[in-house]
């Protein structure tokens, strides 16, 4: 039997370190010992790709999940799910969640003194097409304060969840907006190695804007690719 395996990220180049002192919650939640390197077996090269999950057609439009339209700036967020070779990850399930335009999550744990919007729930999902392309319609999330340090504010962001083809490719991340002045102050964004941070910023996409209706942003997501040389299995 021949099985392919997924490339491992180069240490320190792509992902944040687990222990990132500026982000205080990591102090007691970051494992202190190095992860044990696990050769890829069927357990790692298979994964919950969610092919069977049935999605409603409107789940990618976060402005139409309630009785009326949410307040805020309507935006389109679209992009492609790719692997490191630039090949599309077809039919990837993309999930997002975000706060409303005022910076408040529809979540019982969010105590920020900003209004809830009865017309905005803030969660959506979509299945990418055969070319890896996905599209959401939503409103631009607000910045919100958090308790990490004095006067700490999260830059506007949308949380993204991707399964990809394998257990090894599972990724949860956040998308930020270009030129946000809060980015340089945010310990979560800045936990990412400097050379990789900008990959979390969406690009303003003039071509995809819709006149009289919405601005658009492009956010491509790149998951781990397969090794070029398939591993020979007994």
């Amino acid at each position, binding site marked *: 039997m021949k099985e392919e395996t997924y490339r*491992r990220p180069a240490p320190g180049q792509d992902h944040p370190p687990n222990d990132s002192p500026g982000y205080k919650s990591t102090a007691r939640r970051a494992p202190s010992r190095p992860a044990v390197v696990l050769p890829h077996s069927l357990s790692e090269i298979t994964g919950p790709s969610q092919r069977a999950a049935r999605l409603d057609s409107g789940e990618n439009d976060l402005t139409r999940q309630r009785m009326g339209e949410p307040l805020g700036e309507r935006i389109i967020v679209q992009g492609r799910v790719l692997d490191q070779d630039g090949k599309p990850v077809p039919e990837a399930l993309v999930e997002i969640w975000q706060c409303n335009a005022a910076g408040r*999550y*529809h979540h019982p744990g969010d105590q920020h003194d900003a209004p809830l919007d009865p017309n905005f729930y803030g*969660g959506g999902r979509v299945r990418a097409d055969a070319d890896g392309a996905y599209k959401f319609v939503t409103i631009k999330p607000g910045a919100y304060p958090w308790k990490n340090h004095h006067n700490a504010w999260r830059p506007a962001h949308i949380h993204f969840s991707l399964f990809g083809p394998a257990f090894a490719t599972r990724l949860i991340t956040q998308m930020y907006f270009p030129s946000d002045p809060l980015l340089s102050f945010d310990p979560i964004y800045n*936990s990412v190695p400097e050379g990789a941070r900008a990959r979390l910023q969406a690009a303003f996409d003039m071509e995809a804007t819709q006149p009289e209706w919405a601005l658009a942003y492009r956010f491509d997501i790149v998951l781990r690719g397969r090794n070029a040389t398939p591993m020979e299995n007994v």
Partner: protein
Amino acid sequence: MSRALTPSQTIGPFYFGTIINAYRQDLASQGVAGERLQIELSLHDADGAIVPDGLFEIWQANSHGRYDHPDDRRNLPLDPGFDGFGRASTDTTGRATFSTIKPGRVPWPAGGLQAPHINVSVFARGVLNRLATRLYFEGDPELAEDPVLKLVESTRRATLIAKRDASGIWRLPIHLGGAHETVFFDC
């Protein structure tokens, strides 16, 4: 054209309804073959404090040892009503429960079979990268020969092995740090 990886970020505290409600904690509908299991995972920080805002995902083979995935091309039966994926957030006591069936054994690339195991992903506020670990079952005779457990220092293997309590529930505490820090895998 080669592309650079998208970096990981924390799930944060406010992941919610959409990514939880759409999935069952009950993985195996009636009629799915295999030994029924109740599993309780709990999440703890380096001080031993419970983590009430974490998320667990599990991924497992069916009772025949077959993964419901196109890259598992072995001629073994798939079970309608069982895709092997579960997701649950921790509750106010740091726990999450799943009901499922015991996975069969799956092969190891260098030959032989692995002991029955469930693959686990851990997400939480303060956790910047997905943490991957495994759940094995105490008392399985196959544990002694498992190629993955052999990669782990013997003193730390117990962090991967669930124990069955008097009520029949398989429990595995997952510690993000501290003296009982769970073994996580770079997978």
